[in-house]
Structures are given as C-alpha cells and as structure tokens.
C-alpha cells in the first residue's frame, strides 16, 4: 500500500489505513515528542500525545497531500509536544535558540511570511551536511551529544555547523529587515 493509496483510504474513513500509518510512523512521532518533552513526561504521556497526533491526522485526512505525510505528522507532533510543554510550564534548552523581537513592524503577516521564507532560504543555502545538523537540533530537538552519536560528527564540529547556520539565518533575516 503506497502513501497515495493510504491517504485515499484514510479519506474514505478506512480505519485499517490508519493502523497502517500508526505502524509506520508511531516510532517517528513518539521520538519527535520525546525529544521535545521526554524528560518531563512518562512513557504513557508520550503514547497519549502520540495518539493525539494520529487522531488529528484522522480528523484532517481530507487535507492530506501524497508525499507529505511525514512532514504533516512531524509538524503536528511538534505542535502537540510544544503545547504540552507550555501546559507543564517547562522549557527545552537548545543551542543559542535566540529570540527574535521586532515589535516595530506592525504589519504582522509580512513579518511572519518574511521569517518563514528566511528559514527556508537559510536551509536551502546551507550545505546538505550543515542543513541536516540544523534540522536535527532545531526541528527535532536532538542534543549535540545525540547528533554526535547518530552522525559520528564530533560535538565541536556539530556546534560550529550550528553556529554557521545561525549566522546565515541572522544575515538573511537582517537582509529582510528583521532585527535580532
């Protein structure tokens, strides 16, 4: 059953198709949730949040696009986990995960669009290796030690690649008129 037919089956309300998706992506979704909030939650909490992700998928199957199932699940998993984190009043520390403030730009959506485009431009402008490190840390919340363990790249190199990504992002945001 390929992704296109799974999505079609989900859209028809086929529960077996959802079970296929859960079998395929339960580990991925749980890992994303655990990376963000694992230290503050039990295994049962992770499972409960993961089931929320798949329940959301089920309720929104009409909007799914073939080829984008994993990004969709990743995005919802991050969103649910960050929401839980907020409910628990906890934070996750990432490498210099600085805050951009630009209260002087009242036209809200231009700012949001610019920053969304900026992050996309940044990732596209990084070398594939630097991009992967950036995504692992800032999207998947992997620690530097975890990245080192999974990729074999030394922690100091991981840090320098993250720094390069941040510099690039800073410059692109600066070019687009967003002050840090």
């Amino acid at each position, binding site marked *: 059953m390929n992704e296109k037919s799974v999505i079609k089956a989900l859209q028809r309300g086929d529960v077996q198709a959802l079970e296929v998706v859960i079998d395929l992506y339960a580990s991925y979704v749980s890992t994303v949730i655990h990376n963000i909030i694992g230290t503050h939650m039990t295994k049962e909490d992770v499972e409960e949040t993961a089931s929320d992700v798949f329940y959301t998928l089920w309720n929104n199957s009409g909007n799914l696009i073939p080829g*984008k199932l994993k990004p969709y699940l990743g995005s919802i998993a991050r969103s649910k986990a960050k929401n839980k984190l907020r409910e628990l009043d906890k934070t996750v520390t990432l490498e210099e995960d600085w805050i951009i403030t630009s209260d002087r730009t009242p036209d809200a959506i231009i700012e949001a669009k610019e920053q969304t485009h900026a992050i996309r431009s940044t990732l596209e402008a990084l070398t594939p290796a630097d991009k992967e490190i950036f995504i692992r840390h800032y999207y998947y919340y992997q620690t530097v030690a975890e990245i080192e363990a999974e990729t074999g790249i030394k922690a100091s190199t991981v840090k320098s690649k993250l720094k390069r990504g941040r510099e690039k992002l800073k410059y692109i945001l600066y070019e687009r008129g967003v002050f840090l």
Partner: protein
Amino acid sequence: MKYTISDLLDLYEENDVNIKDKNIASSKKIKELTMEKIESRKKKARPITRILIIAAIVAAISGAALANSLGAGSYFRNIFYNELTEEQVQVLDEVGTTSMESVTDHGTTITPVAALADENLCYIVLEIEGPEGTQFRKLTENEGYYQLGLDFESLEALGGFSMGTYWYPDENQVSNRITAVITIEGTTEKLNDGGEKWIRFDNIYIQSPEKEYTLFLEGTWAFEYGRNLTSQSVEVPVDGMIVSRVNEDFDDAWQLTLTDMKISSLGIRVCYSYSANTKMVTPVPGPIKVVMKDGSEIGVTISTQVLFEEPFDEEFLAQAEEAYARSIEEQRAAYESSKTAEYSTYYEEWSLYFISPVNLDEVAYIQLGHDELQIPLNNN
C-alpha cells in the same frame, strides 16, 4: 512578535532527515488509544464542538451580539504598515465583517470586533475586557508579552496554519481593556469561502522571553469568524507565461512557467513550475509590485529604508557580509555538487502580502519583473 529558531521551523515541511527512532513508546498502545478516541467521537459529539456550543450559548444569554456601527475598515486603520487612506478603509469595510459575537467566561469578555480575509490570510481584531481590577499594560522587554492560549485543534482544520498575535495596550494608562490583532494563515482551506470557521482560546498568559508561561486570565473563548467573510479577488490570466530569473550568487538561471495568479485586496498568490537538476535553490518569479491608476505603487515587502531607522551597526554589517561571502563560496561548491544528471519539474506556490490593502478597481497593472500584467475587469 517574538520567535525562537525552533519556532521559525514550525511551518517547515521536514522530509529529508532520518532520525534514529528511540522506540520509547508502544505502537500497539498508541493504536489502542487512537482507536478509543475515534470510537468515543462516534458515540458523542467532539469535546471541542460541545465547548463551542457552550460558548455560543453563553454569548446568546449575555445578549452580547455586537451592535456595531463602524465598518471593519475602521478597526484596521493602524495595523498595516502605513496608516490607511479613507479609500482603503472603504475597501476593508466591503470585504471585512463586524458581525461576530462576544464571549464571556470567568468574567473576561472577548469581542471579535472585526475580521477580514483573503484565501490564505485572515486578520481578526479582538477587544478584551478583563474583570474589574485587571491591569493590562505595556509589558517590558524582560517581562515578555501577553499570549492567548490557542487551542490548536480549532485551527487544524485549515491543514497547515500559523497564528500571530499583536497586542495594542493603551500606551498612556493601565486598564482592564486591551486590543489584540491575530493573523491566521491557512494553507489548504480557503479562509474566505464563507464557511463556518472557529477559533478557540484557553486562558491568557504572560509569556516571558524564556518562554515561561504565567496564567494571567482564566477562561475559554471560542469564536466563529468565517461565515461573513468575503473577498475581492481576481484571477490574473498568466497560464503558460514564462519568466526568466537569474541568481547571481549561484551563477544560475531558470525559466519559470506561471500556472496561476490571484490578487486580492490583501495580497498576491502565484503558482509556477520550473525544471532544475537540483532543489538546493528555489527561484521565485518576483520582484513584484502593484501599480495603481494614480501612479502610486504598493509594495509587497517591508521597505528597508524604514526598518533601518535605528543607528546603523556598521561592525555587524561588515561581519555579516564577510560571513555571507565565506558562506556563499562554500555553498557554490555544494550547489554544483548537488546537481544531478536528470532534470525534474518542481511546482511551487509563492504568496506575498501587501503593505497596505489594495482597491482592485484602482489597480492599473501588476509589475512582475519586467512584465506588466493587466487585471481583468468584472472578475470578482
């Protein structure tokens, strides 16, 4: 508005990196829990629906339906980059709505006084009145800012979405009232299709720069905002039009085939395809601007000259340019090595928003690069 790098990645469609699964949860258990939720839903109305119904009843009992003599445009005078002209306010009066109902919970009333939208973007102005004794004020940088506790499920029907909130406290006094403007960006469902759309907030917090949340006001407020939204929008005939774009950094050029363009009072969306042997750089069909019949121009990006009004940091700029030059050298090599023997066709969508709303009746043409695109008449 404040973001962290990880927040900026919320809308990123990640599909390239394979992370090692930690196997910390049981897929069997996840399946059971998910199926229980689906079964539970079949047996009773969804919890959110019940809450929405309760919210609607509260609004009805309180008799809080908004008697609004002002048009929607009046509420948006100050949120765009430039203060609106009377004509622009009239445009927003026509496309926006003020027919929404307030909701009171735990003594706090939130009134969505005006909303406007095009297909992908919606602005809603909320007037919030806390219980007597509540003190809304302009928070300092170190304190953070007010934050509405968004119920994500209420927006997930939009497919992908993003929401921003902009607070407008009274600069001169502390009071129990504050105005907030929220922006909702949907990616799959048309926001202006006239269908029922809900958004729900649980509590109002103060969010610190360290992302710590302190409960400020307790309550649940849910609003229907979609039924009365319309939009002035026009299809621009571009199907098959080809534009050339060059990227000097990477010494490359593309032929972009435009497949669809739509302009609304708030922005432009362009769909296009192109052939390339690497996806490392995505070309866009811009620059783009709207030229009005009186000769004035409406831009789609923030003007740098306005944003650079603070003392210019020459040292930072020099460092940034140096870093960028170094980075480009490395990226050029990566770009060349990322090219494959085979070309693929890529399909892209590019959405841009105007720095102030546009009366489409007064548009002379759209300037896309060197091309002037005419807007058809009577095609709303």
